[in-house]
């Protein structure tokens, strides 16, 4: 039958800390009361479980994650559209060439964005090629310094191409299409990249007259 610890009983009656009678390979055990703060942590977590579940499922106060993210992304899209509209209002072929591309800080910002995002496919020298050992190998993008502008060579054509990516009807370059950079870059950044290209390729844009 169960061996009620005698030492335990004795201690209990005396109100002392209980040392259990049984030893395991010389290991003894006290039977201290559970620390209250520990118990309250445990009970608190259990109560919070019930409270949180009830709040979420029974009060109708919360939206689902899906609804939340959808709402916020729609709001971001709206903001982005407004931002683009605002930028486009001040932007035209002439301002890009004669205002944006003439400011060194704008061109420098455009260059930084270009090198971070565009040079992997179009190369730092705009040639869309790289040198591997002794051979020159084409990169995935179209060359920008060959005076050929497949989708229009006006500054605003270039801005829109970067913003929207390859047009839907395009078959792509060897099957590859350029992504819509408006997703990752702000209209201002795209205008800066355009200004950088204009500054690097003045010949291509020399016909654009000032306003």
């Amino acid at each position, binding site marked *: 039958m169960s061996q009620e610890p005698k030492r335990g009983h004795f201690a209990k009656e005396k109100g002392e800390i209980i040392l259990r009678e049984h030893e395991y390979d010389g290991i003894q055990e006290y039977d201290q009361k559970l620390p209250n703060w520990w118990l309250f942590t445990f009970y608190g977590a259990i109560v919070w479980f019930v409270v949180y579940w009830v709040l979420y499922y029974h009060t109708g106060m919360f939206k689902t994650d*899906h609804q*939340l993210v959808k709402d916020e992304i729609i709001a971001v899209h709206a903001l982005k559209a407004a931002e683009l509209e605002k930028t486009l209002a001040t932007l035209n072929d002439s301002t890009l060439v004669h205002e944006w591309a003439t400011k060194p800080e704008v061109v420098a910002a455009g260059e930084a964005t270009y090198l971070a995002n565009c040079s992997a496919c179009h190369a730092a020298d705009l040639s869309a090629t790289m040198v591997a050992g002794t051979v020159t190998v084409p990169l995935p993008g179209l060359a920008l310094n060959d005076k050929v502008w497949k989708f229009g060579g006006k500054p605003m054509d270039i801005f829109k191409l970067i913003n929207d*990516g390859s047009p839907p009807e395009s078959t792509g370059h060897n099957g590859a299409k350029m992504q819509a950079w408006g997703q990752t870059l702000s209209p201002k950044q795209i205008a800066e990249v355009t200004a950088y290209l204009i500054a690097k390729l003045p010949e291509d844009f020399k016909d654009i007259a000032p306003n």
Partner: protein
Amino acid sequence: MTTSITYDDKSVRRFMIASIFWGIVGMLVGVIIALQLSRWEMNGKFLEALTFGAIKSDGISFLTFGRLRPLHTNAVIFAFVGNMMFAGVYYSTQRLCKCRMASDLLSTIHFWGWQLIIVAAAITLPMGFTRGKEYAELIWPINIAVVLIWVVFSVNFLWTLAKRNEPSLYVALWFYISTIVTVAMLYIVNHLSLPTSFTHSYPIFGGLQDGLVQWWYGHNAVAFFLTTPILGIMYYFLPKAANRPVYSYRLSIVHFWSLVFIYIWAGPHHLLNTDLPRWLQMLGMLFSLMLWAPSWGGMLNGLLTLRGAWDKLRTDPVIKFFAAGVTFYGMATFEGPLLSIRAVNALSHYTDWTIGHVHSGALGWNGFMAAGMFYWLAPRLWKTQLWSKALANMHFWIGTVGILLYVAALWCAGIMQGLMLNQVNEGGTTLKYEFIETLNDIQIFYWLRSIGGTFYLLGFILCAINIWKTARSGVPHDEVVEVTLLERKQKDSMRWGEALLNDPLTHIVLAMAFIILWFFLPPHADKAALVVSALLCVKAISAFKANKEKWTNWHERLIENYLPFTVLVFVAVAIGGAVQIIPSLIVNREKNIEGRLQELYTPLELAGRDLYVSEGCYNCHSQMIRTLVPEVMRYGRAGVPDDYSHLGESLFDHPYQWGSKRTGPDLAREGGPIAKDAAGNPLKYMRVGKRGNDWHFNHFLNPRQTSPGSNMPAYPWLFENKTDVKSLPDKIRAQVAVGVPWPALSKHEITDMVETQAQEIAKSLVDAKVYLPSKPDLKGDELRNQLANTQVVALIAYMQKLGAYREVKPENPGQPRALDPDSQRKTAAAK
């Protein structure tokens, strides 16, 4: 009647030596892969410098991060901690049972079998043979060996309990029992797979189901392989070393049962903020919070046992290691619930914070408890003195500094990268940083982490030297003791009815059953279930107050009966998994998918996917856009507001590849639609997504060419090795058997499809004038035919397919479904 017994300490010595040996191997691999994150050259190129140019390669397949990281985790978990645990279990169980291990033969089979498994793992993982699931990478023949050896261990252990000369079971043994039972359950279920060859298989679960099963296993591998056995070891060795009584017996009881019951439920916290059903996320998060107190119960019982022995901290390295180990356990088990809060997890998940968290457990808790135990055991196992206390102290300090450097570095890396990834530009419409910028900015912390890890490894080498010298200074010694033989009726005399149909248990089981009904019942009925459960709790409390003696005695009796105890532990650990996984197996199926359903792979894409798994790409890349705004902004497509990863998009993925860490960006939207040829006509199979085929080609050849600053290894062998087409019919047959709705395809059709798609991709590469460094002279058709057969083309086919889906409608959209709590409850949005 007394008799003299010789304990089997030979097995203890063997396991201990094996643990130290594999520990050093595992930690060394850890340091190598940590350096690989800072210097891509560590993936093979460094051999060029080491051998003065005799070996020339930009990357060597069996040295890449994707293959070595599984080796590191498996070596540390199963080889280092596994062997350490067996040493501790064999030593303490014999003494707590006052009897020699039941069978020397089983002990020997257990030892050598386990070492063979480790050797097999160390060979197969670098070769790229993997199941593609974390800590469950080993291929199926090794899985079977693991199960067999685990059975040998279990039989040996339980048989020893049956033969014991000690009426009741000490708390350490409770923890060992829970380890044996639970690891068996988890391991078997998570490794259920269908072989396609001797070295390859597909898990029977796919997509969300595979993810749930994986983290039910993965989280509880931490719980029942790295925690419970070490708690058992703590309960034996710590009071021994401190020579103090354990702090509180009733705390042992309460924290043992709550720990083993609650731990199992916490698995879904690895999948928070994904499209995982909300009720599972709630259970994962809330049970993790409830786990805090039971975990700290163990820490308290360890630390408070040291009361009255704190002075030994100054003199005894064993106590130093134990005190620090238990403290790290407390730290890690506080951080765990913290990271399981959905809002915190939104920041921390997929970053290095998680890696730091597991290492404060692995290095601090497991590593230090192991060291303390080794230093305590060695003088006893070789009947001598510890060779050098000073060296052990040195180990302690160098190890502690190593851990702190490591953990602090990864806190910084994880939090900083998480914040940077969420940072938006002025206006809030675009993200501030490219992924690669965030990676480059945390490099300083990666270096600090490598230094911390190296410190820790050095400390462990000191430990090995110390133990070696100690062993050399003594002789192997098997302890002999006089024990009083126990009569049969003094133990294991409880009848099953008495054990199972008893008051505390009936109350608990009923209250628990109603709580589970509260999760699943439709509105109103669920509230009634909650009320019933609450009433049952009140009734239980009053019954307990009325008859404390009876309740206490039941447990006192229970621990004198090892079989009923084992059965109750199994029941306690089985409930959580069953409640979470079984409903998902029933509900999350093709017929219930609303919205996006994954497009099936073509045979070539499947071959590419198998390569993706085999190269361990999932170690650094996720395929899961969480339901968080910055993630959808970063990885989602322009103009698609709900472009997080929907569950249906990975429904047919065996194994699922959501990943757990992003050293590189998410790949869920990497693929795209069928491409068109130059004339504008759609091609047959070739797709093009975010990036062109030539971009991927260049990227696999030299990631830094397309992504300057990348730390991804180069994969030159993909450009040489041929795609394994021959095995595809068998693989497709296995996929059909596990439930992927492939159309009926003959061998001939499969080969044709592979050839057509490979040629389409190879042609696009030749048109793009790609450069194959190993064969620079090949041109035109020759180059195309050469490329079409190579693995890189298969892998590109897979990359371009990622995220492909079609829209579907289920039979009854939006209807409440049984076992789907979310579908039965209305939230604010649905009103």
